[in-house]
């Protein structure tokens, strides 16, 4: 709801608020009246699946406040959007408070969940019956289990930090309140996505997240580039959503319901035929690719950098783009059963890793590089979850770690851009480390984490994925492992390039003259969250992977990961290899960008190699989309408009003109001569006589 609040609309406030409270009051009523959810969640154990039981405990006690998680940011968004100018002064604080409160609730629920035994950590809360039509019973309900708990914490945690950061970053922006409103709307939609207990509720969250990313990308509306980027993002998300919608319809057609427990239970119990299951999995994958910017649909993510940097951090790095991975993890029973679908996931993951890395090296715009780095890191996650039961937990682990350090990197880049008053071209940076020490440190830690320096989180999560890739076994195992390794190397290269260009080397900017730059350290309200994220990016990996804490935590949802399987390569060897490759990437970048002087202006296409030229044009992904879809689409619409006016409408006007012409000709027969009329009379008489004779003799 992008109702621009500068103009107050009291009446719509009142009306919308009432319908909101009505919706929430309805949800409260089931809570207060009967703590047990209205529709009995029957529990059915799957015959042969070990320990993978699908069935949810009723939300009781503190869990009855699960909906609060969702409603707090939603309320914040509504108040800010409809509040109008009055809320300008304290609008941003309210937004941050809402996000923080939601984080606190998330923490409380998380620890309550930890307190419970391993099996009943899946708590479902029924809100109200959304679309009850005979066989199609869809209830709006929330599911707070291990997987969604982790995501809730990530979303609200990183979200709150970014809210705090935005207070500083958007301090001088006139539309600040609208920005925080959309951020809260985004949080609410993302939470709806992760907390939904039904694929249709997930779909609702899915599209609302797409909407909020659309709104935030075009936040600076007066820039045409932002508007086109926002539209492009929405269109591509919509293409993905078609896949998700079709998957849900297929589920309804086969299982008769879209709830997680029914669908995933049926998948686990192997009731659904292999073909249908693969179809569902592939369609879900299409949806995931659309949202997470994977191979066929990755063109929109770099353009989404038009939005303000906190958005790039929150939406296009930490949370929304990982929704695809969440979907595949949530639908793990389906993917476990279908080997074919998982191979496709793995292939897409691998291809995206390579695409992301290659293009990442060619761009000079700091945010574009980070965007492509996100694309390739998510490629890793897809690769992980594509490996089957072994990889789900690893994918999620890398996702969480990535959430921390990529958000940190983006916020760091934001503070650099902020300092260099909105200059995004790295070739205009250089030697900033002395002027912005805190940013340098926090950015550095994030950078080290992403290239996989041992103690930091990136090392643990990425190394495990590469190891799992090799453990897949057979030629495909090697192939995947090698691509992952190659990816790790190139990532080290472009991240080091970015780090050196930005903070080290000689200054390629001047503090005098008309393009004077006065880089200064960002205010603490910005550096604080960056520091916290830096801390997170240091310890998160270890916390999750060492001792398999995350894997055990997620086991009930994602199934046991077969740790003890045969290793094609011993873990030690894999780790050594990864470090070696990373060091190689680092050295290459160091030699290229630290030792040799860096030109202030990038060399023209003619002088650079073929690959770099291709990479500068996003490996011609955009040109491909334009030539295959946009150009023919425009011609088709123009042709159809012509066809409609000339063809269909022509037919209508044609008949009218035809009748007009006919009557014009008939008019000519009235010549005015009595004798010609007499002639026609005689002709008539002859016909009558002929008819009479025919009838009589006939």
């Amino acid at each position, binding site marked *: 709801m992008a109702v621009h609040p500068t103009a107050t609309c009291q009446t719509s406030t009142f009306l919308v608020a009432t319908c909101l409270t009505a919706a929430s009051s309805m949800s409260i009523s089931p809570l207060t009246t009967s703590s047990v959810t209205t529709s009995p969640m029957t529990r059915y154990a799957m015959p042969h699946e070990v320990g993978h039981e699908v069935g949810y405990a009723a939300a009781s006690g503190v869990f009855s406040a699960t909906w609060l998680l969702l409603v707090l940011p939603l309320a914040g968004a509504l108040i800010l959007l409809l509040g109008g100018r009055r809320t300008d002064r304290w609008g941003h604080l309210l937004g941050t408070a809402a996000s923080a409160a939601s984080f606190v609730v998330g923490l409380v629920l998380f620890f309550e969940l930890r307190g419970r035994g391993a099996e009943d950590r899946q708590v479902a809360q029924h809100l109200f019956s959304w679309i009850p039509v005979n066989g199609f019973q869809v209830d709006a309900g929330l599911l707070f289990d291990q997987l969604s708990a982790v995501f809730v914490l990530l979303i609200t945690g990183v979200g709150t930090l970014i809210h705090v950061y935005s207070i500083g970053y958007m301090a001088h922006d006139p539309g600040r309140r609208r920005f925080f409103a959309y951020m809260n709307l985004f949080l609410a939609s993302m939470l709806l996505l992760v907390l939904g207990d039904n694929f249709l509720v997930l779909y609702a969250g899915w599209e609302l997240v797409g909407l909020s990313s659309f709104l935030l990308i075009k936040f600076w509306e007066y820039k045409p580039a932002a508007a086109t980027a926002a539209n492009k993002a929405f269109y591509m998300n919509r293409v993905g959503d078609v896949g998700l919608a079709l998957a849900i319809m297929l589920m309804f057609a086969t299982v008769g319901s879209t709830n997680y427990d029914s669908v995933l239970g049926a998948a686990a119990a192997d009731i659904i035929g292999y073909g249908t299951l693969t179809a569902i999995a592939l369609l879900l994958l299409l949806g995931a690719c659309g949202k997470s910017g994977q191979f066929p649909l990755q063109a929109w993510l770099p353009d989404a950098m038009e939005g303000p940097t906190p958005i790039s951090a929150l939406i296009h790095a930490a949370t929304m783009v990982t929704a695809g991975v969440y979907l595949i993890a949530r639908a793990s029973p389906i993917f476990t059963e279908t080997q074919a679908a998982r191979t496709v996931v793995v292939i897409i993951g691998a291809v995206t890793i390579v695409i992301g890395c290659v293009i990442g090296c060619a761009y000079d715009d700091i945010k574009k590089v980070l965007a492509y780095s996100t694309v390739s890191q998510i490629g890793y996650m897809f690769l992980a979850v594509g490996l089957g039961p072994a990889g789900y937990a690893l994918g999620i682990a890398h996702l969480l770690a990535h959430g921390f350090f990529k958000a940190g990197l983006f916020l760091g880049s934001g503070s650099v851009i902020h300092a260099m008053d909105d200059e995004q071209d790295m070739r205009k940076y250089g030697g900033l480390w002395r002027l912005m020490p805190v940013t340098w440190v926090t950015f550095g830690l994030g950078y080290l984490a992403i290239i996989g320096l041992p103690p930091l989180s990136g090392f643990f999560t990425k190394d495990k994925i590469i190891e799992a890739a090799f453990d897949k076994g057979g030629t495909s195992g090697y192939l995947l492992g090698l691509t992952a390794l190659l990816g790790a190397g190139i990532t080290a290269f472009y991240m080091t390039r970015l780090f050196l260009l930005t903070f080290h080397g000689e200054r390629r900017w001047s503090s005098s003259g008309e393009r004077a730059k006065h880089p200064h350290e960002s205010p603490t309200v910005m550096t604080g969250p960056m520091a916290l994220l830096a801390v997170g990016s240091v310890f998160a990996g270890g916390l999750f992977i060492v001792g398999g804490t995350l894997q055990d935590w997620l086991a009930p949802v994602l199934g046991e990961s077969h740790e003890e399987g045969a290793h094609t390569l011993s873990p030690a060897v894999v780790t050594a290899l990864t470090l070696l490759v990373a060091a190689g990437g680092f050295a290459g970048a160091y030699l290229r960008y630290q030792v040799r002087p860096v030109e202030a202006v990038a060399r023209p296409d003619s002088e650079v190699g073929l690959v770099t030229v291709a990479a500068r044009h996003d490996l011609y992904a955009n040109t491909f989309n334009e030539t295959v879809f946009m150009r023919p689409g425009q011609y088709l619409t123009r042709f159809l408009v012509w066809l409609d006016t000339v063809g269909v409408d022509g037919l209508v006007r044609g008949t009218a003109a035809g009748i007009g012409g006919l009557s014009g000709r008939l008019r000519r027969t009235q010549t005015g001569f009595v004798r*010609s009329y007499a*002639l026609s009379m*005689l002709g008539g*008489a*002859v016909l009558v*006589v002929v008819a009479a*004779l025919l009838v009589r003799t006939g």
Partner: protein
Amino acid sequence: MSAQILAQAAGEITRTSTGEAATFWVLAPVAVLAALGMVLARNAVHGALLLVTNFFCLAVFYLLQDAPFLGFVQIVVYTGAIMVLFLFVLMLVGVDSSDSLVETLRGQRVAAIVLGVGFAGLLVFPIGGVINNGTTAAGLTAANDGGNIQAIARLLFTDYVLAFEIVSALLIIAAVGAMILGHRERVDGKVTQREMLRRRFAEGGRVTPIPGPAVYARPEGTRLPAGLPGGGTDPGAGQGAREGCGDIEGNGDGDNGAGAHARGNPRPVGAGKGTDR
């Protein structure tokens, strides 16, 4: 009574079968030729006369077919009254106007002939068929037992009396209609005698009456202009007698409505107020 005897007499004479056939085969071609002549005659009056002969043949045929009343009515009413009316109108409209037979409408002649022949063929052949299978005529002897006229009168005033009354009304309407169509409203006001005298002196035209035509005994005397007492001639007086009786040049030229022939002679004042037919 005499008419009835006369009718019966005529009927007997011609009704003997051979006699009937003979008269038929004589008069039928005459009737057809008369009809063709009427259609093809350039001069309308010749057409009218041919039509009259046609009607006579028809009258005879009526008599042949035991319809003496109709035969005579045909002759008396139809030929006598209607044809005469035609001739009368022809006289008014221009007796000697001969039409050019050149066809103006495109394809009218061809179509007319084709359709005419087709129509005739269609009518004749079925009737021809009827003749071959020899339908016998019931004959009117039974119906005419008390005399044709009495029988017709009986029928006319019993079954068809309503039709009879309506037809009489029709005739009256026709008469009134003809009068209305013929009547011409006077456009200018009624010229009183005072008005005529005023006009006679006002215009400065000739006041004294025109001298009589035959002032001199010589045959061309009527053409010579009259001499004035003071010498010189008075053009007005040289009014020639009319050449021939009021010929009206053919179709549509000259104002023969008023009958005067404007050869330089101003309209004689008061000679006649718009005489017309």
